[in-house]
Protein backbone atom coordinates (compact mmCIF):
# COMPACT_ATOMS: atom_id res chain seq x y z
CA UNK A 1 0.00 0.00 0.00
CA UNK A 2 2.91 2.32 0.69
CA UNK A 3 4.10 1.89 -2.89
CA UNK A 4 0.65 2.57 -4.26
CA UNK A 5 0.41 5.70 -2.14
CA UNK A 6 3.81 6.88 -3.35
CA UNK A 7 2.78 6.23 -6.96
CA UNK A 8 -0.45 8.20 -6.51
CA UNK A 9 1.42 11.08 -4.89
CA UNK A 10 3.66 11.24 -7.95
CA UNK A 11 0.82 11.02 -10.45
CA UNK A 12 -1.15 13.68 -8.59
CA UNK A 13 1.39 16.38 -9.50
CA UNK A 14 1.96 15.02 -13.03
CA UNK A 15 -0.40 17.41 -14.78
CA UNK A 16 1.04 20.37 -12.89
CA UNK A 17 4.54 19.32 -13.90
CA UNK A 18 3.41 18.92 -17.50
CA UNK A 19 2.05 22.46 -17.31
CA UNK A 20 5.42 23.70 -16.01
CA UNK A 21 7.22 22.12 -18.95
CA UNK A 22 4.91 22.49 -21.93
CA UNK A 23 5.58 26.19 -22.47
CA UNK A 24 9.32 25.64 -22.21
CA UNK A 25 9.01 22.82 -24.72
CA UNK A 26 6.93 24.94 -27.11
CA UNK A 27 9.43 27.81 -27.09
CA UNK A 28 12.36 25.45 -27.49
CA UNK A 29 10.65 23.44 -30.24
CA UNK A 30 9.23 26.32 -32.29
CA UNK A 31 11.65 29.18 -31.73
CA UNK A 32 14.77 27.11 -31.01
CA UNK A 33 15.33 29.15 -27.87
CA UNK A 34 16.29 27.58 -24.55
CA UNK A 35 14.28 29.98 -22.46
CA UNK A 36 16.27 30.41 -19.25
CA UNK A 37 13.64 32.96 -18.24
CA UNK A 38 10.99 30.24 -17.96
CA UNK A 39 11.51 29.50 -14.25
CA UNK A 40 11.25 33.19 -13.33
CA UNK A 41 8.03 33.47 -15.32
CA UNK A 42 6.58 30.58 -13.33
CA UNK A 43 7.50 32.38 -10.10
CA UNK A 44 5.95 35.61 -11.43
CA UNK A 45 2.72 33.73 -12.18
CA UNK A 46 2.87 32.44 -8.61
CA UNK A 47 3.15 35.97 -7.23
CA UNK A 48 0.23 37.17 -9.37
CA UNK A 49 -1.89 34.37 -7.93
CA UNK A 50 -0.63 35.09 -4.41
CA UNK A 51 -1.61 38.76 -4.56
CA UNK A 52 -4.88 38.04 -6.35
CA UNK A 53 -5.73 35.71 -3.49
CA UNK A 54 -4.51 38.08 -0.80
CA UNK A 55 -6.29 41.20 -2.05
CA UNK A 56 -9.34 39.87 -3.86
CA UNK A 57 -9.65 36.39 -2.45
CA UNK A 58 -9.52 34.74 -5.87
CA UNK A 59 -8.87 31.00 -5.83
CA UNK A 60 -5.50 30.37 -7.54
CA UNK A 61 -6.78 27.29 -9.38
CA UNK A 62 -9.43 29.45 -11.07
CA UNK A 63 -7.07 32.40 -11.44
CA UNK A 64 -4.48 30.37 -13.39
CA UNK A 65 -5.77 31.13 -16.93
CA UNK A 66 -6.09 34.81 -16.03
CA UNK A 67 -2.52 34.95 -14.73
CA UNK A 68 -1.52 33.27 -17.99
CA UNK A 69 -3.49 35.77 -20.07
CA UNK A 70 -1.91 38.80 -18.38
CA UNK A 71 1.56 37.37 -18.84
CA UNK A 72 0.78 36.31 -22.43
CA UNK A 73 0.58 39.97 -23.44
CA UNK A 74 3.93 40.67 -21.79
CA UNK A 75 5.44 37.63 -23.48
CA UNK A 76 4.31 38.69 -26.94
CA UNK A 77 5.73 42.18 -26.40
CA UNK A 78 9.03 40.83 -25.06
CA UNK A 79 9.53 38.51 -28.01
CA UNK A 80 8.42 41.06 -30.62
CA UNK A 81 10.43 43.97 -29.27
CA UNK A 82 13.50 42.30 -27.77
CA UNK A 83 14.16 38.64 -28.57
CA UNK A 84 13.14 38.90 -32.25
CA UNK A 85 16.20 41.04 -32.86
CA UNK A 86 18.53 38.14 -32.15
CA UNK A 87 16.45 35.31 -33.66
CA UNK A 88 18.73 34.97 -36.67
CA UNK A 89 21.85 34.91 -34.49
CA UNK A 90 23.57 31.77 -33.19
CA UNK A 91 21.81 29.67 -30.60
CA UNK A 92 24.04 30.84 -27.73
CA UNK A 93 23.05 34.48 -28.22
CA UNK A 94 19.38 33.79 -27.48
CA UNK A 95 20.44 31.63 -24.55
CA UNK A 96 22.53 34.48 -23.19
CA UNK A 97 19.71 36.99 -23.72
CA UNK A 98 17.15 34.91 -21.85
CA UNK A 99 19.74 34.27 -19.12
CA UNK A 100 20.16 38.02 -18.74
CA UNK A 101 16.41 38.56 -18.68
CA UNK A 102 16.19 35.83 -16.04
CA UNK A 103 18.70 37.65 -13.82
CA UNK A 104 16.82 40.89 -14.34
CA UNK A 105 13.40 39.45 -13.50
CA UNK A 106 14.64 37.39 -10.52
CA UNK A 107 16.36 40.39 -8.99
CA UNK A 108 13.42 42.70 -9.69
CA UNK A 109 11.17 40.25 -7.87
CA UNK A 110 13.71 40.03 -5.03
CA UNK A 111 13.62 43.81 -4.69
CA UNK A 112 9.84 44.01 -4.91
CA UNK A 113 8.72 40.93 -3.00
CA UNK A 114 11.85 39.99 -0.96
CA UNK A 115 13.22 36.45 -0.84
CA UNK A 116 10.68 35.27 1.73
CA UNK A 117 8.87 32.09 0.83
CA UNK A 118 5.15 32.66 0.44
CA UNK A 119 2.31 30.31 -0.15
CA UNK A 120 -1.38 30.75 -0.83
CA UNK A 121 -3.20 29.45 2.23
CA UNK A 122 -6.64 28.40 1.13
CA UNK A 123 -9.46 28.67 3.61
CA UNK A 124 -10.98 26.16 3.97
CA UNK A 125 -7.94 24.03 3.18
CA UNK A 126 -8.50 21.69 0.20
CA UNK A 127 -7.74 18.64 2.36
CA UNK A 128 -7.51 15.16 0.90
CA UNK A 129 -9.71 12.67 -0.93
CA UNK A 130 -9.82 9.61 1.32
CA UNK A 131 -9.97 6.45 -0.79
CA UNK A 132 -9.76 4.02 2.09
CA UNK A 133 -6.28 2.59 2.00
CA UNK A 134 -4.76 5.61 0.26
CA UNK A 135 -5.31 9.34 0.43
CA UNK A 136 -5.02 11.79 -2.45
CA UNK A 137 -4.16 15.44 -1.75
CA UNK A 138 -6.96 17.52 -3.26
CA UNK A 139 -4.89 20.64 -4.07
CA UNK A 140 -2.61 18.59 -6.32
CA UNK A 141 -5.53 17.00 -8.09
CA UNK A 142 -7.07 20.43 -8.77
CA UNK A 143 -3.76 21.72 -10.12
CA UNK A 144 -3.26 18.67 -12.29
CA UNK A 145 -6.80 18.86 -13.70
CA UNK A 146 -6.60 22.57 -14.52
CA UNK A 147 -3.14 22.00 -15.97
CA UNK A 148 -4.37 19.22 -18.22
CA UNK A 149 -7.32 21.34 -19.40
CA UNK A 150 -4.97 24.19 -20.36
CA UNK A 151 -2.58 21.80 -22.10
CA UNK A 152 -5.47 20.27 -24.05
CA UNK A 153 -6.61 23.73 -25.12
CA UNK A 154 -3.09 24.48 -26.35
CA UNK A 155 -2.95 21.18 -28.22
CA UNK A 156 -6.29 21.88 -29.93
CA UNK A 157 -5.14 25.39 -30.85
CA UNK A 158 -1.98 24.05 -32.48
CA UNK A 159 -3.69 21.17 -34.21
CA UNK A 160 -6.89 22.64 -35.58
CA UNK A 161 -6.50 26.37 -36.16
CA UNK A 162 -4.84 28.31 -38.96
CA UNK A 163 -2.63 29.96 -36.40
CA UNK A 164 -1.54 26.59 -35.03
CA UNK A 165 -0.65 25.44 -38.54
CA UNK A 166 1.31 28.65 -39.04
CA UNK A 167 3.31 28.02 -35.86
CA UNK A 168 4.27 24.56 -37.11
CA UNK A 169 5.05 25.93 -40.58
CA UNK A 170 7.35 28.60 -39.15
CA UNK A 171 9.04 25.95 -37.03
CA UNK A 172 9.67 23.63 -39.98
CA UNK A 173 10.48 26.06 -42.79
CA UNK A 174 10.37 29.81 -42.21
CA UNK A 175 10.86 30.82 -45.84
CA UNK A 176 8.10 28.50 -47.03
CA UNK A 177 5.84 29.86 -44.28
CA UNK A 178 6.60 33.44 -45.36
CA UNK A 179 5.69 32.56 -48.96
CA UNK A 180 2.29 31.41 -47.75
CA UNK A 181 1.73 34.84 -46.24
CA UNK A 182 2.60 33.97 -42.65
CA UNK A 183 4.09 36.90 -40.74
CA UNK A 184 7.08 35.10 -39.27
CA UNK A 185 8.02 37.68 -36.61
CA UNK A 186 4.49 37.97 -35.34
CA UNK A 187 4.07 34.21 -35.27
CA UNK A 188 7.26 33.87 -33.23
CA UNK A 189 5.95 36.51 -30.83
CA UNK A 190 2.62 34.78 -30.26
CA UNK A 191 4.28 31.36 -29.93
CA UNK A 192 6.56 32.80 -27.25
CA UNK A 193 3.52 34.43 -25.65
CA UNK A 194 1.81 31.04 -25.48
CA UNK A 195 4.87 29.61 -23.73
CA UNK A 196 4.68 32.47 -21.22
CA UNK A 197 0.93 31.86 -20.82
CA UNK A 198 1.63 28.27 -19.79
CA UNK A 199 4.44 29.35 -17.43
CA UNK A 200 2.21 31.94 -15.73
CA UNK A 201 -0.66 29.48 -15.38
CA UNK A 202 1.65 26.84 -13.95
CA UNK A 203 2.97 29.36 -11.44
CA UNK A 204 -0.54 30.22 -10.30
CA UNK A 205 -1.43 26.54 -9.97
CA UNK A 206 1.58 25.73 -7.82
CA UNK A 207 1.25 28.81 -5.59
CA UNK A 208 -1.19 26.93 -3.34
CA UNK A 209 0.97 23.78 -3.22
CA UNK A 210 4.61 24.85 -3.10
CA UNK A 211 6.14 27.93 -1.49
CA UNK A 212 7.13 30.58 -4.02
CA UNK A 213 10.16 32.84 -3.94
CA UNK A 214 12.41 34.44 -6.57
CA UNK A 215 15.17 32.06 -5.48
CA UNK A 216 12.98 29.10 -6.49
CA UNK A 217 13.05 29.98 -10.20
CA UNK A 218 16.11 27.88 -11.04
CA UNK A 219 14.44 24.85 -9.47
CA UNK A 220 11.38 25.18 -11.70
CA UNK A 221 13.55 25.76 -14.75
CA UNK A 222 15.47 22.56 -14.06
CA UNK A 223 12.22 20.64 -13.59
CA UNK A 224 10.99 21.92 -16.96
CA UNK A 225 14.28 20.92 -18.52
CA UNK A 226 14.21 17.40 -17.08
CA UNK A 227 10.58 16.89 -18.11
CA UNK A 228 11.26 18.00 -21.68
CA UNK A 229 14.25 15.73 -22.05
CA UNK A 230 12.47 12.73 -20.49
CA UNK A 231 9.31 13.16 -22.56
CA UNK A 232 10.98 14.32 -25.72
CA UNK A 233 11.35 17.80 -27.01
CA UNK A 234 8.85 19.44 -29.27
CA UNK A 235 5.76 17.45 -28.53
CA UNK A 236 2.86 18.15 -26.19
CA UNK A 237 2.24 14.45 -25.42
CA UNK A 238 5.97 14.27 -24.60
CA UNK A 239 5.64 17.05 -22.02
CA UNK A 240 2.63 15.32 -20.47
CA UNK A 241 4.37 11.94 -20.29
CA UNK A 242 7.51 13.64 -18.96
CA UNK A 243 5.50 15.55 -16.35
CA UNK A 244 3.88 12.42 -14.94
CA UNK A 245 7.19 10.54 -15.19
CA UNK A 246 9.01 13.22 -13.18
CA UNK A 247 6.24 13.28 -10.58
CA UNK A 248 6.53 9.54 -10.04
CA UNK A 249 10.34 9.54 -10.14
CA UNK A 250 10.52 12.30 -7.53
CA UNK A 251 7.99 10.54 -5.37
CA UNK A 252 9.95 7.28 -5.37
CA UNK A 253 13.24 9.14 -5.10
CA UNK A 254 11.99 10.74 -1.88
CA UNK A 255 10.90 7.35 -0.56
CA UNK A 256 14.09 5.49 -1.44
CA UNK A 257 16.76 8.15 -0.95
CA UNK A 258 15.07 10.63 1.38
CA UNK A 259 13.11 13.78 0.47
CA UNK A 260 16.23 15.90 0.02
CA UNK A 261 17.24 13.63 -2.88
CA UNK A 262 13.89 13.62 -4.68
CA UNK A 263 15.43 15.41 -7.67
CA UNK A 264 18.71 13.50 -7.52
CA UNK A 265 17.10 10.39 -8.92
CA UNK A 266 15.44 12.46 -11.66
CA UNK A 267 18.77 13.94 -12.73
CA UNK A 268 20.52 10.57 -12.66
CA UNK A 269 17.81 9.18 -14.91
CA UNK A 270 18.13 12.27 -17.09
CA UNK A 271 21.82 11.64 -17.64
CA UNK A 272 21.16 7.98 -18.37
CA UNK A 273 18.41 8.89 -20.83
CA UNK A 274 20.59 11.46 -22.58
CA UNK A 275 23.19 8.75 -23.09
CA UNK A 276 20.77 6.10 -24.33
CA UNK A 277 17.91 7.92 -26.02
CA UNK A 278 18.72 11.61 -26.48
CA UNK A 279 15.50 12.34 -28.40
CA UNK A 280 13.44 11.49 -25.31
CA UNK A 281 10.58 9.03 -25.01
CA UNK A 282 8.28 10.73 -27.53
CA UNK A 283 10.65 13.16 -29.22
CA UNK A 284 9.82 14.18 -32.74
CA UNK A 285 9.94 17.17 -35.03
CA UNK A 286 7.18 19.63 -35.62
CA UNK A 287 5.45 20.24 -32.33
CA UNK A 288 1.91 19.01 -32.69
Amino acid sequence: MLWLQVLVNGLAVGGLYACIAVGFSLVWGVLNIINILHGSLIVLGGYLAFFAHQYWGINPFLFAPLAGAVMFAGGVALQYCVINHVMARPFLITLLLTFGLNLFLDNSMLALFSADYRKVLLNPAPGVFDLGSIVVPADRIYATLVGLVLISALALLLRFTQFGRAIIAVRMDRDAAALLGVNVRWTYAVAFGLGVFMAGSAGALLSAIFPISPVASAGYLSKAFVICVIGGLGSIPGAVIGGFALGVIESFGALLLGPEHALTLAFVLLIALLAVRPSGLLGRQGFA
Partner: protein
Amino acid sequence: MTGTLLKVEGLETGYGDIQVVWRADLEVRQGAITALIGSNGAGKTTLLRALSGLLPLRNGAIFVSGRDLAGASPQQFVEHGVAHVPEGRRLITGLSVHDNLMLGAYRRKDGKQAIRADLERMYALFPRLAERRRQDATTMSGGEQQMCAIARGLMAAPGLLLIDELSLGLAPAIVDQLVTTLERVRADGTSILLVEQDVGIALELADFVYVMDQGRTVRNGPADEIAADPSIIAAYMGT
Protein backbone atom coordinates in the same frame (compact mmCIF):
# COMPACT_ATOMS: atom_id res chain seq x y z
CA MET B 1 -5.59 37.98 -73.05
CA THR B 2 -5.40 41.66 -72.35
CA GLY B 3 -3.68 43.68 -69.69
CA THR B 4 -0.39 43.30 -67.91
CA LEU B 5 -0.54 41.45 -64.61
CA LEU B 6 3.12 41.65 -63.63
CA LYS B 7 5.69 44.10 -64.89
CA VAL B 8 9.33 43.99 -63.83
CA GLU B 9 11.71 46.80 -64.80
CA GLY B 10 15.46 46.85 -64.37
CA LEU B 11 15.35 44.57 -61.35
CA GLU B 12 18.61 43.90 -59.48
CA THR B 13 18.88 41.68 -56.46
CA GLY B 14 21.07 39.13 -54.70
CA TYR B 15 22.10 37.69 -51.37
CA GLY B 16 23.97 39.99 -49.00
CA ASP B 17 27.00 41.36 -50.82
CA ILE B 18 26.60 38.96 -53.73
CA GLN B 19 24.57 40.34 -56.58
CA VAL B 20 22.92 37.62 -58.66
CA VAL B 21 20.37 39.37 -60.85
CA TRP B 22 21.90 42.29 -62.75
CA ARG B 23 19.03 43.38 -64.90
CA ALA B 24 15.71 41.67 -65.32
CA ASP B 25 12.86 43.08 -67.38
CA LEU B 26 9.76 41.08 -67.99
CA GLU B 27 6.01 41.20 -68.35
CA VAL B 28 3.37 38.61 -67.60
CA ARG B 29 0.13 39.20 -69.41
CA GLN B 30 -3.24 38.40 -67.94
CA GLY B 31 -4.30 34.85 -68.75
CA ALA B 32 -0.92 33.83 -70.17
CA ILE B 33 1.57 31.18 -69.24
CA THR B 34 4.99 32.79 -69.32
CA ALA B 35 8.17 30.77 -68.96
CA LEU B 36 11.59 31.83 -67.78
CA ILE B 37 14.37 29.59 -69.04
CA GLY B 38 18.12 29.61 -68.72
CA SER B 39 21.04 27.52 -67.59
CA ASN B 40 21.87 26.67 -64.00
CA GLY B 41 22.96 29.72 -62.03
CA ALA B 42 21.41 32.20 -64.45
CA GLY B 43 19.45 33.77 -61.58
CA LYS B 44 15.95 32.43 -62.31
CA THR B 45 15.20 31.24 -58.78
CA THR B 46 16.72 34.39 -57.29
CA LEU B 47 14.52 36.55 -59.52
CA LEU B 48 11.45 34.59 -58.45
CA ARG B 49 12.38 35.04 -54.77
CA ALA B 50 12.52 38.79 -55.32
CA LEU B 51 9.13 38.64 -57.08
CA SER B 52 7.52 37.30 -53.92
CA GLY B 53 9.20 39.60 -51.43
CA LEU B 54 11.71 37.11 -50.00
CA LEU B 55 14.68 39.13 -51.26
CA PRO B 56 15.02 42.91 -51.10
CA LEU B 57 15.56 44.79 -54.36
CA ARG B 58 18.79 46.65 -55.02
CA ASN B 59 17.25 48.47 -57.88
CA GLY B 60 14.30 48.38 -60.21
CA ALA B 61 10.56 48.11 -59.93
CA ILE B 62 7.86 45.46 -59.61
CA PHE B 63 4.28 46.27 -60.57
CA VAL B 64 1.46 43.85 -59.83
CA SER B 65 -1.76 44.91 -61.58
CA GLY B 66 -0.24 48.37 -61.82
CA ARG B 67 0.56 48.61 -58.12
CA ASP B 68 4.17 49.22 -57.11
CA LEU B 69 5.29 46.37 -54.85
CA ALA B 70 9.03 47.08 -54.72
CA GLY B 71 10.15 46.49 -51.14
CA ALA B 72 6.91 44.81 -50.12
CA SER B 73 6.88 41.87 -47.70
CA PRO B 74 5.96 38.30 -48.74
CA GLN B 75 2.60 38.76 -47.01
CA GLN B 76 1.85 41.80 -49.16
CA PHE B 77 2.68 39.89 -52.32
CA VAL B 78 0.30 37.11 -51.26
CA GLU B 79 -2.39 39.67 -50.44
CA HIS B 80 -2.00 41.21 -53.90
CA GLY B 81 -2.53 37.87 -55.55
CA VAL B 82 0.96 36.51 -56.14
CA ALA B 83 1.49 32.94 -54.89
CA HIS B 84 4.90 31.28 -55.10
CA VAL B 85 5.36 27.51 -55.44
CA PRO B 86 8.99 27.20 -54.34
CA GLU B 87 11.70 24.99 -55.76
CA GLY B 88 11.75 21.64 -53.97
CA ARG B 89 8.04 22.00 -53.06
CA ARG B 90 8.81 22.95 -49.42
CA LEU B 91 5.72 21.28 -47.97
CA ILE B 92 5.49 21.46 -44.19
CA THR B 93 6.70 18.27 -42.51
CA GLY B 94 4.37 16.97 -39.81
CA LEU B 95 1.27 18.51 -41.37
CA SER B 96 -1.25 16.60 -43.46
CA VAL B 97 -2.12 17.39 -47.07
CA HIS B 98 -5.30 19.07 -45.78
CA ASP B 99 -3.34 21.25 -43.33
CA ASN B 100 -0.80 22.22 -45.98
CA LEU B 101 -3.59 23.26 -48.32
CA MET B 102 -5.29 25.23 -45.55
CA LEU B 103 -2.04 27.12 -44.93
CA GLY B 104 -2.16 28.21 -48.57
CA ALA B 105 -5.31 30.15 -47.66
CA TYR B 106 -3.64 31.82 -44.65
CA ARG B 107 -4.00 35.40 -45.91
CA ARG B 108 -7.51 35.03 -47.30
CA LYS B 109 -10.27 37.07 -45.77
CA ASP B 110 -13.19 35.93 -47.91
CA GLY B 111 -14.57 33.52 -45.36
CA LYS B 112 -14.63 29.83 -44.52
CA GLN B 113 -17.21 28.96 -47.18
CA ALA B 114 -15.10 30.23 -50.06
CA ILE B 115 -12.00 28.51 -48.69
CA ARG B 116 -13.87 25.23 -48.27
CA ALA B 117 -15.19 25.48 -51.82
CA ASP B 118 -11.66 26.04 -53.14
CA LEU B 119 -10.40 23.10 -51.09
CA GLU B 120 -12.95 20.85 -52.82
CA ARG B 121 -11.96 22.37 -56.17
CA MET B 122 -8.33 21.38 -55.47
CA TYR B 123 -9.34 17.84 -54.60
CA ALA B 124 -11.29 17.68 -57.88
CA LEU B 125 -8.29 19.06 -59.79
CA PHE B 126 -5.90 16.60 -58.10
CA PRO B 127 -7.88 13.46 -57.11
CA ARG B 128 -4.68 11.90 -55.74
CA LEU B 129 -4.58 14.57 -53.04
CA ALA B 130 -8.15 13.79 -52.04
CA GLU B 131 -7.16 10.17 -51.42
CA ARG B 132 -4.26 11.30 -49.26
CA ARG B 133 -5.74 14.31 -47.50
CA ARG B 134 -4.97 12.93 -44.01
CA GLN B 135 -1.44 11.78 -44.85
CA ASP B 136 1.70 13.67 -43.79
CA ALA B 137 2.34 15.66 -46.97
CA THR B 138 6.10 15.08 -47.06
CA THR B 139 5.70 11.29 -47.06
CA MET B 140 4.09 11.32 -50.53
CA SER B 141 5.88 10.71 -53.83
CA GLY B 142 7.61 13.62 -55.54
CA GLY B 143 4.82 14.03 -58.09
CA GLU B 144 2.13 14.04 -55.43
CA GLN B 145 4.13 16.57 -53.43
CA GLN B 146 4.37 18.82 -56.48
CA MET B 147 0.59 18.55 -56.92
CA CYS B 148 0.16 19.47 -53.26
CA ALA B 149 2.52 22.44 -53.59
CA ILE B 150 0.68 23.75 -56.65
CA ALA B 151 -2.69 23.24 -54.97
CA ARG B 152 -1.39 25.00 -51.85
CA GLY B 153 -0.34 27.96 -54.02
CA LEU B 154 -3.77 28.02 -55.68
CA MET B 155 -5.48 28.01 -52.28
CA ALA B 156 -4.36 31.64 -51.93
CA ALA B 157 -6.78 32.34 -54.84
CA PRO B 158 -3.95 34.11 -56.69
CA GLY B 159 -4.13 36.04 -59.92
CA LEU B 160 -0.57 34.97 -60.64
CA LEU B 161 1.08 31.68 -59.74
CA LEU B 162 4.89 31.58 -59.71
CA ILE B 163 6.19 28.04 -60.13
CA ASP B 164 9.88 27.30 -59.59
CA GLU B 165 11.06 24.10 -61.30
CA LEU B 166 7.87 22.27 -62.17
CA SER B 167 9.48 19.11 -63.51
CA LEU B 168 12.63 18.76 -61.42
CA GLY B 169 13.07 15.15 -60.31
CA LEU B 170 9.68 13.99 -61.60
CA ALA B 171 8.80 11.12 -63.96
CA PRO B 172 7.77 12.20 -67.48
CA ALA B 173 4.26 10.74 -67.10
CA ILE B 174 3.68 12.87 -63.99
CA VAL B 175 5.02 15.96 -65.72
CA ASP B 176 2.58 15.43 -68.62
CA GLN B 177 -0.24 15.23 -66.12
CA LEU B 178 0.89 18.46 -64.39
CA VAL B 179 1.15 20.24 -67.75
CA THR B 180 -2.45 19.31 -68.54
CA THR B 181 -3.57 20.49 -65.10
CA LEU B 182 -1.77 23.82 -65.42
CA GLU B 183 -3.54 24.45 -68.73
CA ARG B 184 -6.80 23.98 -66.84
CA VAL B 185 -5.62 26.31 -64.10
CA ARG B 186 -4.90 28.98 -66.68
CA ALA B 187 -8.31 28.43 -68.29
CA ASP B 188 -9.85 28.94 -64.84
CA GLY B 189 -8.30 32.42 -64.72
CA THR B 190 -4.92 32.16 -63.00
CA SER B 191 -1.90 33.38 -64.95
CA ILE B 192 1.36 31.52 -64.52
CA LEU B 193 5.04 32.44 -64.48
CA LEU B 194 7.05 29.26 -64.76
CA VAL B 195 10.74 28.77 -64.14
CA GLU B 196 11.83 25.60 -65.85
CA GLN B 197 15.14 23.95 -66.58
CA ASP B 198 13.62 21.54 -69.07
CA VAL B 199 13.31 23.85 -72.05
CA GLY B 200 11.19 21.33 -73.99
CA ILE B 201 8.49 21.44 -71.32
CA ALA B 202 8.69 25.22 -71.00
CA LEU B 203 8.23 25.70 -74.74
CA GLU B 204 5.35 23.22 -74.83
CA LEU B 205 3.43 24.86 -72.00
CA ALA B 206 4.19 28.56 -72.34
CA ASP B 207 2.78 31.24 -74.64
CA PHE B 208 5.68 33.57 -74.11
CA VAL B 209 9.27 32.88 -73.11
CA TYR B 210 12.06 34.89 -71.50
CA VAL B 211 15.65 33.68 -71.60
CA MET B 212 17.90 34.52 -68.71
CA ASP B 213 21.69 34.39 -68.76
CA GLN B 214 24.21 35.50 -66.15
CA GLY B 215 21.67 37.47 -64.19
CA ARG B 216 20.11 39.26 -67.15
CA THR B 217 17.00 38.68 -69.24
CA VAL B 218 18.65 38.49 -72.63
CA ARG B 219 15.89 37.44 -74.99
CA ASN B 220 12.16 37.10 -75.18
CA GLY B 221 9.50 36.14 -77.65
CA PRO B 222 6.47 33.96 -78.31
CA ALA B 223 7.16 30.32 -77.49
CA ASP B 224 6.98 29.10 -81.10
CA GLU B 225 9.43 31.79 -82.22
CA ILE B 226 11.92 30.88 -79.48
CA ALA B 227 11.43 27.19 -80.25
CA ALA B 228 12.38 27.77 -83.86
CA ASP B 229 15.57 29.67 -83.01
CA PRO B 230 18.58 27.49 -83.75
CA SER B 231 20.82 29.31 -81.26
CA ILE B 232 18.38 28.63 -78.40
CA ILE B 233 18.15 24.99 -79.38
CA ALA B 234 21.93 24.74 -79.53
CA ALA B 235 22.42 26.48 -76.18
CA TYR B 236 19.72 24.87 -74.08
CA MET B 237 18.45 21.71 -75.74
CA GLY B 238 21.62 19.92 -76.75
CA THR B 239 22.49 18.52 -80.22
